[in-house]
């Protein structure tokens, strides 16, 4: 990882940009913290066991009730939704945990914010490590589903364009949301650990990740349509499963490109808002003397 980071840093346009240099170094640092400082064997098990176990909970729940009818479209819906959701929680909580780590654990906030770095790019970079781990977990979980439960995904029939485009937009929207939560964390003295988890938990419940939105009571359903994750999960499922995914009423009246359009709009708004929110939160944290606060909470 160090060699890769070195190479990227030596690219002329990266070397010239403060933001890009900060981003690359922060991503390298995040990776060192997440992986190299733990026993590699334990780290590998930890990265695989949690996602596999969480999807197996749903598999067993499903199998107990349906007597193992894994060929039903609802099974693929639940399985893929849960697998893709790993990325949601990794990216969203990744940035806020970077703030908590730097402030409470490593106590380096003072040094970081007195250094000539781009804070926005730094936090984005710190989130990359968790995103990479999340991506690996998603791929392994889907691979496991293909082998163990014969998920109806065929490489030849995957709509790669829709998958890559929607995933890029989905991850960008998640990163912007994560950055806003990280910014909020800078101003909190208590319960900062719960901020990311709470938003991730809400998305799990309201974005139709593991059950179609129609299962929710009618007064709760509109909440699902507010989050970009709902559109990303729907688009990714359609791209991976093909016509089978369209069997569900959730968002069925939207075409693939309408989904991408809505997702693009939401992502653009979130990125702009996150930039302003970060600046405002940083200013507030500095004004109130919270930036290097160590609460040991």
């Amino acid at each position: 990882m160090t060699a890769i980071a070195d190479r990227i840093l030596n690219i002329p346009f990266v070397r010239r940009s403060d933001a890009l240099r900060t981003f690359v170094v922060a991503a390298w640092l995040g990776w060192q913290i997440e992986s190299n400082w733990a026993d590699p064997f334990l780290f590998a098990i930890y990265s695989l066991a949690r996602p596999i176990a969480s999807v197996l909970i749903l598999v067993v729940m499903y199998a107990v009730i349906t007597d193992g009818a894994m060929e039903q479209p609802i099974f693929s819906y639940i399985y893929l939704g849960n697998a893709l959701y790993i990325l949601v929680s990794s990216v969203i909580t990744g940035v806020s945990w970077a703030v908590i780590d730097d402030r409470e654990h490593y106590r380096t906030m003072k040094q970081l914010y007195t250094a000539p770095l781009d804070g926005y790019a730094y936090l984005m970079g710190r989130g990359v490590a968790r995103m990479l781990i999340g991506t690996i977990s998603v791929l392994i979980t889907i691979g496991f589903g293909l082998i163990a439960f014969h998920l109806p995904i065929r490489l030849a029939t995957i709509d790669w364009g829709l998958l890559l485009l929607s995933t890029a937009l989905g991850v960008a929207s998640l990163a912007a949301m994560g950055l806003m939560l990280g910014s909020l964390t800078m101003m909190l003295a208590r319960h900062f650990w719960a901020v990311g988890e709470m938003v991730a938990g809400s998305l799990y419940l309201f974005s139709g990740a593991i059950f179609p939105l129609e299962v929710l009571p009618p007064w709760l359903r509109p909440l699902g349509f507010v989050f970009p994750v709902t559109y990303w999960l729907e688009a990714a499922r359609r791209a991976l499963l093909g016509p089978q995914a369209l069997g569900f009423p959730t968002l069925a009246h939207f075409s693939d490109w309408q989904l991408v359009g809505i997702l693009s709009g939401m992502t653009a708004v979130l990125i702009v808002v996150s930039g302003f929110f970060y600046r405002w939160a940083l200013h507030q944290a500095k004004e109130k003397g919270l930036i290097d606060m160590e609460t040991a909470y």
Partner: protein
Amino acid sequence: MSEIREVEKARGFSLFWRTMWARAYPRIIGTTREKSWAFFDTILPLMSTVSYVFVYRAINAPEEYIGFVVVGGAMTAFWLNVLWSMASQLYWDKDMGNLELYVLSPGPMMAILLGMAVGGLVMTGTRAAAILIVCSLLFRVTYQTGSLLLLLAIFTLTMAALYGMGMMFASVFLASGREAWHLSNLLQEPIYLVSGFYFPVRALGFWVATFASVIPLTLGLDAMRQLLFAGGPSLGFLSVRTETGILAVSAVIFIAAAHVMLRKLEEKGRRDGRLIERRR
């Protein structure tokens, strides 16, 4: 001139008792001084439990499974308390510089750990009760209240075995250094899976369920579900009587093992000079 009172030196059980309450005190007082935890500690676990309920609804599961999820969701509070507020706590205390104070004090380490558990029970109990009450009302879960005394006995035995295990873990986590964090994370979802937090553990087959019975919550949860739901006994792993017996034996074994392991670790740490070593 005021008379100087001699302070009675605590020994034996009295020392254990006082140490336990001394450690529990800041946690209990902390919960009354800063009450916003009640919101964060109840809403967050509620959402995952509710999500699992909706999964069962999506696949048209019988109503008793909704009850299984609610009871399992409530019990996750105790497992999380053991992992994060007990097993990992000595590692964090080492990081913050409290561990050396514990070691230097005459109070037994087991009493300190038990104090953490007792102190954390206010928060954990609230969390579990919130899941149980809110979800039961929200999803109209019906319970049968046949043997309330037996239910209480099983719950108490489960907690004794579980917190004994937590004390044992504390010594293991302390020895594992920076990996303590990963270990705690590793023991969340995989344990929810093998212990059958969201489905009857019998569904995993005899051998997996037997292996998972090492975790006291597996049998505790199974026995409680058998007593609480009309369809529970037909979905139970072992009979309630057998599960109660195993839980009682587990409690004794875990508490004794924790005592031995904590003593050994402290001894080894002192000898190697690494007991209070901090690495970030």
